[in-house]
């Protein structure tokens, strides 16, 4: 059967539903991390699809879904000025400290 067309489906010959980015939290206190993406007609179904695809084996206790179109991303052209690590500015790198014993180093 063909994909069901629904009211929220994108217009203009698009046959795909909107794309959503999925973020999952593995345990309480842990950050939500990007797990992947799903297509879905709306937020509730995006959440359900994300659960079915990314949280079936206890990988998550919480899920966020975000419409992919709302994500503002840097562009490859930004690589130079935007991310210039300023390695010549030694004072930006906290490497002059002795870590006391007993402190976990990440």
């Amino acid at each position, binding site marked *: 059967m063909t994909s069901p067309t*629904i009211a929220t489906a994108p217009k203009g010959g698009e046959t795909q539903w909107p794309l959503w980015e999925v973020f999952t939290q593995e345990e309480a206190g842990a950050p939500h991390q990007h797990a992947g993406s799903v*297509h879905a007609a709306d937020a509730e179904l995006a959440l359900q699809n994300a659960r079915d695809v990314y949280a079936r084996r206890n990988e998550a206790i919480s899920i966020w879904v975000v419409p992919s179109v709302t994500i503002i991303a840097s562009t490859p052209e930004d690589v130079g000025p935007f991310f210039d690590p300023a390695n010549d500015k030694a004072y930006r790198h906290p490497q002059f400290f002795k870590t006391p014993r007993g402190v976990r180093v990440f």
Partner: protein
Amino acid sequence: MDEQTSRDFFEYLLRLGDDRLILGHRVSEWCGHGPILEEDIALSNIALDLLGQANLLLQLAGQVEGQGRDQDALAYFREATQFRNAILCETPNGDFGDTIVRQFLYSVYALLVLDQLQRCRHEALAGIAAKAYKEARYHVRHSGEWLIKLGDGTEESHRRVQAALDKAWSYTGELFVGDDIERRLAAQGLAVDPASVREGWLAQVKDVVAIATLTLPADGYMQRGGRTGRHTEHLGHLLAEMQIVARSFPGASW
């Protein structure tokens, strides 16, 4: 358990288990044919949930029967007339709307039965019911969401899902027909009398159907027979496919 109760209980477990085995098999037929990848995964998940429940219920049924039949023997080596599932569960998948309607109507029913069954006096059955209850909640949520989407969607999706609802309606009556077996067991706290969940089921279905801008079908003639082994021709075809491997290689294990 006295002999009568044990016979009743075996029969009751078959009804619970067969519903899920047959509906689970039907839903699994969507695997690889879903309307979109994500929904294919969702339907396969629901099918797996149902088959997992059937596995536990039929295993318990075999133990209660005490004739050395395990869940595989019960699933693969019974004839259509020995199956106790409601006819709704064996109806063909039809289109996506038919499948969603069937899933929603059954899942709401299952949820209400399992809710009570979690507190039944048989510890093993209560445990299975508690696990299945969580899964059924999701099945209701997913199929209900889709029912609303399709009903309150385009003209075509509305028309098709309304037709699916009208078609499925005559199979719902059977779900709530309790008989002496269920009543005897319910009196001992070993079963849920299905008649007791009808009102709650109707209220929930009405709510979602209204949100979906669909019309609730009128109660007309209701099909029945599945609980006593009188099935539609569809079950025979389903079993032929489901049982062929086990019957071609009896006793095989992997």
